[in-house]
């Protein structure tokens, strides 16, 4: 589904990603872990098409297409979804308005008719329930005045409704208490399927107790320095990031 080869990225004059290689197949869950400043968020931003990052080398192919050539909204319509580490507050735009605009943009892109208003409401209300959210949230402005946990839940709600193919979760667990984390994890687990892949970017191993990854990669100094199965996360938890960081230097 996603094939990243020798990806190098600069921000200004500074090289942040120094040759990333990653293969992700449909149905897989990959966790990317690493210390602060290792380039985790840069990777998620580059994949979603945020401005301000200069790709200096390498390639990113998504379902056989060059992802880096696409505008952010085209990536989204093709099925790439980024759950933001810091979801943006948008006063004056209600959640339900955004959801409908987003869903219809995706449908139109794929040659489908606009969603029927009743069907849309039924779908949205079902997903709201799944994430244990209050229906009133739908009519409030996007993320405005939401607590940290509510914002993260809202990201997963959008994901559940838009049904992307490649879900990138950028530090979705940070700032969540354990109850909110469980709800978010359940939401993610309910979306697991053979044709959908997840990339979970996280600093902490805790999230992986609730969403079990197939692969764990450790990112340090802009490179993937170690890859393994779910057990790698536990090893990291035990030994700390300095363990892998030292391996790089050595």
């Amino acid at each position, binding site marked *: 589904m996603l094939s990243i080869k020798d990806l190098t990225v600069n921000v200004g004059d500074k090289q942040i990603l120094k040759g990333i290689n990653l293969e992700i197949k449909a149905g897989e869950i990959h966790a990317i872990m690493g210390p602060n400043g290792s380039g985790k968020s840069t990777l998620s931003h580059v994949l979603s098409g945020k*401005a301000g990052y200069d790709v200096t080398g390498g390639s990113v192919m998504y379902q056989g297409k060059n992802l880096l050539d696409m505008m952010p*909204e085209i990536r*989204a*319509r093709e099925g790439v979804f980024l759950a*933001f580490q810091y979801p943006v507050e*948008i006063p004056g735009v209600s959640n339900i308005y*955004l959801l*409908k605009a987003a869903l219809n943009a995706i449908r139109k892109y794929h040659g489908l008719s606009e969603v029927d208003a009743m069907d849309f409401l039924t779908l949205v209300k079902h997903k709201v329930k799944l994430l244990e959210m209050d229906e009133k949230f739908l*009519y409030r402005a996007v993320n405005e005045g939401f607590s940290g946990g509510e914002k993260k839940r809202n990201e997963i709600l959008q994901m559940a409704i838009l049904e992307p193919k490649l879900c990138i979760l950028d530090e979705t667990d940070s700032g969540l208490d354990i109850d909110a984390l469980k709800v978010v994890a359940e939401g993610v687990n309910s979306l697991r399927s053979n044709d959908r892949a997840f990339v979970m970017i996280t600093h902490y191993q805790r999230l992986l107790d609730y969403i079990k990854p197939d692969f764990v990669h450790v990112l340090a100094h802009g490179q993937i320095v170690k890859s393994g199965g779910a057990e790698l996360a536990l090893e990291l938890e035990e030994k700390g990031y300095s363990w892998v960081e030292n391996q790089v230097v050595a």
Partner: protein
Amino acid sequence: MSAVATSRYVAEYGALAPTLPGQSLPWLQQLRRDALTKFSANGFPSPREEEWRYTNVSAIEKRLFTPALKQSSGQVDADWLKAQQLDDAWSVVLVNGHFSTEYSQLDSLPDGVTVISMADALVETQDFATLLETHLGHAVNNAEHNLVAFNTAWFSDGVFVHVPAKQVLTKPIQLLHIVTEADAMATTRNVIMVDELAEAQVIETFVGLDNAYLTAAVTEVFVGQNAHLTLTKMQIESEKAYHFGGTYAKQSKDARFTHHNFAFGGLLARCDIHTDLDQASECELNGLYLGVKRQHIDNHTRINHLKPHAISREMYKGVLDDRAKGVFQGRVIVAEDAQKTDSQMNNRNLLLSDDAEADTKPQLEIYADDVKCGHGVTVGQLDEKSIFYLQSRSVDEETARNMLTFAFANEMVDKIKIKSLHDKVLEQVLARFPQEGVEKDWL
């Protein structure tokens, strides 16, 4: 101001003066004479005056707008009129500056509530004339600026609204100012009095057919002790029109005054909103101006904290596109005696084109030492983070910008509590920034 243009207006006045209301009232005759003297001496305001430095009115000198006579105030298309009127409101219609009994709808006004034509109120035998002697020209005087003097000299009619003590109006009153004739001048003077413990909602709508014309309106407002008036101005004049409208309020102790100012129309529009705050009174001034093409929209506010413990909140937002120009000048003056004043003033501008311009000038003048006053001003573009967020949810950039621009404006529309008015204003904002495929209830 050229002396030639001034003298043309003054010569016109000579012919008109005997037909103006209030002939039998010496105090009003004196007030009008004083106004004419001031106007004759200096003409329309000049950009040399500090309060007019961003707004040049010389365009109205180049043509002579003439007052429409009452009998010439012809028929108004019924469907068009209905589209301007609010459902479920008492409605006063002024056509070309004259109160229209035919189109006004004031059935079942509660006893003691007065809503009548200013010309009728200024008849010597009426009790109202006595009341007006101590109110008309008392919330603002001719020295304020020469468009106030112009209005005082020329006003042909207007509305007098009086809500007696403890009366709580269940429906809003709409004062609908319509101009149907090209090159007409609609000069109205309105006085709104809401006495002690009363509550009222009044809407002033200014609208006209697709002509060049001049509106010069002055509304004086008196909010009694512990009374509450919500006054909404909806300025949707023709895009060729010149609009000068001032609202001047005096708030008694504990009085509340909420003003919403929607400035969408006019080629050149200038609006002044002033209020004087007595002890522990509160005012909320909200504004939204939307400029396109070559529109010039100027809003001036002045909040006078005269006594202690008063609260003022002000938020003006502007969206300017094409070559439009928006001006905001907001003054908050805190008198020496006005300790414990709590004041916050904000002005936010969104520029949608490189040629659009926003001139903003907040001014705080504080003479007391124990006060909480703040102000904030922004002039800028849409937030790139927000645009990217929407894009990451599949919305293309153009749609995202449109959604965010609408949202920026809609925040002010949302402050309107009257449903029918809210929907009318929303309609106007949606006409500027259409939102496709969304239920109105979701906005």
